[in-house]
């Protein structure tokens, strides 16, 4: 395992997860599993900011794996492993 998976929290997630960065040591897992693990490790149920009750991505949720949007990969089934950097953004707007 090449290092830890680095999970960074942004937007509204920051109000729930008080540290902006979480490092997770894990075997390869998918994004949904990673989110569950992050929820357990932080003790904060932030998933509702990202997922609907059916555990699908909310419109506007952005999850990047090494800068690439998981919607262009395998969505929540995208696999990640040690050394990957994951950015979690709750839905946002602006301009």
């Amino acid at each position, binding site marked *: 395992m090449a290092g830890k998976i680095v999970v960074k929290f*942004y*937007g*509204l997630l*920051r*109000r729930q997860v008080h540290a902006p960065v979480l490092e997770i040591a894990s075997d390869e897992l998918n994004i949904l599993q990673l989110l569950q693990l992050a929820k357990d490790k932080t003790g904060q149920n932030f998933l509702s*900011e990202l997922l609907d009750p059916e555990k699908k991505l*909310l*419109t*506007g*949720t*952005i999850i*990047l794996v*090494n*800068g*690439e*949007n998981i*919607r*262009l990969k395998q969505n929540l089934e995208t696999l990640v492993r040690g050394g990957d950097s994951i*950015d979690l*953004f*709750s*839905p*946002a*707007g*602006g*301009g």
Partner: protein
Amino acid sequence: MNGWMGKITKIDLGSLEQETVAIDDEMRRRYLGGRGLGVKLYTDLCSAKTDPFAPDNALIFMTGPLTGTVMTSGRYAVVSRSPLTGTICDSSSGGSFGAVLKSAGLDGLVIQGRADHPVYLYIHDGGIEVRDAAGLWGLNTQQTQKAIQEQTPAKTSVACIGPAGENRVAFAAIMNDKDRAAGRGGMGAVMGAKNLKAIAASGSQAVTIADPEGYKAMNARLERIIDKNPVTGKALQVLGTSVLVNIINAHGMFPTENFRRGMFNDAEGTSGEKIAESLLQRQSACYKCPIGCGRTTRTKNKHGEGPEYETVWAFGAQLGVSDLTAITEANYACNELGLDTITMGSTIGCAMELSETGAWKEKLDWGDASKLLAFVEDTAYRRGIGAELALGSKRLAEKYGRPELAMQVKGMEIPAYDPRGVQGMALSYATSNRGGCHMRAYMISPEILGHPVFLDRFSTVGKAEIVALFQDISALVDSTVLCRFLQIAMGISTFTEMLRTVTGLDFSDEELLKIGRRIYTLERVFNNRAGFSRGDDTLPPRFFNEELQTGSSRHRLVRLEEMLDDYYSVRGWDKEGVPLPRTLAELGL
């Protein structure tokens, strides 16, 4: 009449003559109000040869049929020819001024001529009084609003210029309701050239609603839609528009040091999250707005509004500056002096690169926040280095022989999204009728933020159709005149419903899209006459030739030629970007 007040007045500030502008029902239905009707009236009155600062140039303030009715309806549009770009230009602003202007009895006013001394207009009971403003000339925008409010009834709303507009800085803004700005394109300079310091309005006339019962039920439903949407119901309120800083940076397209890089090391320190935990005093909202994206902030020395996303970038990453207090105070200064923050910051960035290359003898350093306030103030008064910055980036870079270092389209500085990381936005910038602007077709929504649908930002396939559609919808919403943030939660059919309920006219979605297309095409016709064509629908060479080196947009370039012909074809324009006769005929132009 339902929706509209039914009166637009034209005033000549030279002769002081006033007349009612004849608008028939058909023209209202074809152009609605705001940007659309403003552009129609402008192009009827002025030619493409009209100098923006000449007395005969028209400056048009316009509300729309929804102004003063549903949520976010305090807005107004200003239309004229831009002194920054030479294109047709509209600029819109929030607050309550639009709603108050309508309550004073007018849908809009058309201003021509030049006063022989500084004046302001006071509008009430459907009439316009021309008042002396000699004592106001030289005051900043906050002082001006306060002084006029002391001379007028309670709840008077004021739109005014500051010293930058008086001094005809080509990117001077019009400010209203304290810190709301019609920022882009130099409408404040046009106002200054007319010796017009401000427009104040007060009144109590109500907008007549065609279907009051339906209106009540619709409003309750709209509130629920806004509240339920995670962006309009929560994210914009809590974090403001600067929540985009980290998002755009993570996509490797947060323009840094005049677009030489796409990632800013200190993005986090200037983010919406950081502002919320440091400078933010409270959220602020425009007239009847349930969203409340505005930021009332305080630094150690001052308080005011902002910064919003574009400003955080313009005085931050664009200059390599990470000092959030300096960014915020530069924003306050722009608000007070009446300057567009995007063009101001981008022009300083251009100057920094000119300095670095040795093309300009002035010594400006990336990351140096210590001179920001002086740059802003000197620009408004056109003194010292500010006399050069007041040119805007295009003219400044041309003057020093390096035109490619101005990050602009048609003379307007492009905002805080590097087009190399987002192909649809690149096409949107290139084909925008007022120059480098994100508000003509906000492709960041689908290409980055994922609403209403998620699109691959690096693909060019199908982008032409979507950019044209977004441009049409934006022109439509700008003519109603409502806030674009409603589009985050609402589709075209909701705007149709609002217009039907308020005006009683049987609008359809198709008709509204056609109205948007008509407006966009009419703007294009004016620009063609002013000499703009395919060669102007482009971007600075940096975006075609220099790859970004870091982040998730690295090795990317803009592929405009893959989209431009398609775009013209979708639009019904020829290969030079000129609308075909059949297109004009279809739109009744």
